[in-house]
């Protein structure tokens, strides 16, 4: 069982880069494990689907704008969130369509894809760095991803004969 964690966003567009920052920190926390790869990406749709090929499980972390309080973490339950600023590409396909295409083309794609998204305050100013409230959400997402990742691993350990 191999997992991919994808942080997705734009690193020079304020809070839009929150997924990348979370991925950067997760890469440090999960370094040395050979059952997980952490990558940063800049666009969704077909490219995201292609990145997930060959993994059994995927965690995708993105920024989102729903109008809620900045820093709100969306996606605490698996399968409840299926969107984000970059998960879909308006240039080629949304993620479900991309996954259908990939499977139809014979790619091996994860059965379980979990999406986390952090509510952004500013996605229109070109600058590096996050707004304070979004910055505060980063360690929380890191801990929750690590926890769910480890508990899933633990469950698998317990399942072993």
């Amino acid at each position, binding site marked *: 069982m191999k997992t991919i964690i994808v942080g997705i966003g734009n690193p020079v*567009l304020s809070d839009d880069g929150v997924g990348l920052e979370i991925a950067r920190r997760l890469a440090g926390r999960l370094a040395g494990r050979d059952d997980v790869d952490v990558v940063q990406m800049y666009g969704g749709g077909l490219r995201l689907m292609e990145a997930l090929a060959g993994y059994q499980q995927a965690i995708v972390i993105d920024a989102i704008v729903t109008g809620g309080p900045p820093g709100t973490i969306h996606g605490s339950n698996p399968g409840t969130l299926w969107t984000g600023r*970059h998960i879909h590409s*308006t*240039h*080629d396909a949304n993620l479900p369509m991309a996954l259908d295409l*990939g499977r*139809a083309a014979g*790619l091996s794609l994860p059965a379980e894809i979990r999406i986390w998204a952090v509510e952004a305050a500013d996605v229109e100013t*070109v*600058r590096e760095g996050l707004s304070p409230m979004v910055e505060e959400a980063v360690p929380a997402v890191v801990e929750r991803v690590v926890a769910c990742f480890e508990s899933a691993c633990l469950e698998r350990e317990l399942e072993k004969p």
Partner: protein
Amino acid sequence: MKRISINPITRLEGHGKIEIFLDEAGNVANAYLQVPELRGFEQFCVGRPAEDMPIVTSRICGVCPEAHHMASVKALDQVFAADPPPAAKKIRELLYMAFFVTDHTTHFYALGGPDFIVGPDAPPAERNILGVIRKAGLEIGKQVIECRARNHHVIQMLGGRGIHPTAGLPGGWSKTVSEPERQEIQQAARQNVEFALFTLSLFESIVLKNSAYREMLGSEAYCHRTYSMGTVDARNCLNFYDGRIRVVDPEGRDFAVFPSSDYLGHIAEHVEPWTYLKFPFLKRIGWHGFRDGSDSGVYCATPLARLNVADRLATPRAQEFFERFYETCGSGKAGGRYRPVHHRLATHWARLIELLYAAERMLELASDAEVTSPEVRSIPREIAGEGIGSMEAPRGTLIHHYVTDREGRLRKVNLIVGTTHNHAAISMSIRKAAESLIRAGQVVEEGLLNRIEMAFRLYDPCLSCATHSLPGEMPLVVDIRSHEGERIRTLRRLP
């Protein structure tokens, strides 16, 4: 005045909004594309070392980072007065052709093609890449995925990284190409040529043999007789990587040919109060509103415009299709060259001819032993302080202009991207599409959305480039407003 606002459009890169203004009789008065402001791009760049720009600018768009990377390194060649050795130029162009093949392929199968292959009046849920494989076969889906994969691999091999290349340097390229790599790329290029030929034959069998589709291709609803812009080499053959910018008038006569360093002498930008996008126009003609004709400065820089400015294509198979294109679209010859085609839906066909050209050009470059030369860099020895790099991005001519201080720190940055050149024309096409379906206040709802989407999509607009912003998920929402601006109903379609 009644206002119909469509916000935003499906399958359009970047955040866009369409406003349709009706006159008092309920007919279309004007149609515009609105985009949100992106704050501070130039300020973000000013003060940075100029050599950061190939990486920084490739971040502004998730779709065409390769184009920004290349235009940026070309501008840096001038900033640092270092002309790259021939091998470096060839490696850059080789990577760029692999990118072009991927981008044009994706556009056709995922965005533009479904309107034709699945049909313009099919439900929106079917007019997508899955609809294409249902209609034309699963094998096509596999081929599209394989085409993307092999070209992404080539881009990674040559560029140092898969999505955002890092190998471009002022005066050249940071990586050499080994002989086994060259052979692998050559093999990928051969497959690209086969795939491009297959795609063109698919287009011909589905579109050209269907009289309704052929009629649509030549439809007046999508016709604008504007000037055309594109890059050509010394023999007036289309070139994506380098050359002079050529502009021909609506009849195909030369209007201007200039090096990109003279762009400010030829292009000016019109500003409207309702959008942050600028509308470039031909300075010598002037801005006379959103209209076509030889007395309007509106021009286009699209795959169709590029074929219109080229006397011919430099590769053999693409040249065959180039001739077939103009013979079929029936514009005739004048002054020894084909007269321009102005029916904008033909842009989809033009894009596929470009796909074949890019694949053939990639094969030529990959077959050239010089790409394995170790001489890939001229070392910069001075700071000239200004550079203008241009090339053809998939969506039109891309210009990067930098001014630096004596230390090479940026003082001024100006970018004109492909979508921006076409912004006026896109608005005109939306207006024409809307005019055909809104009469005396009567709105043909689903037809309206489809026709406007088709008008947009043929330009392959990339608003993240144009606004330097990035996209999210975009449902299609139409607000219909009364003449007082009050919203009276909303039509909605999710992506």
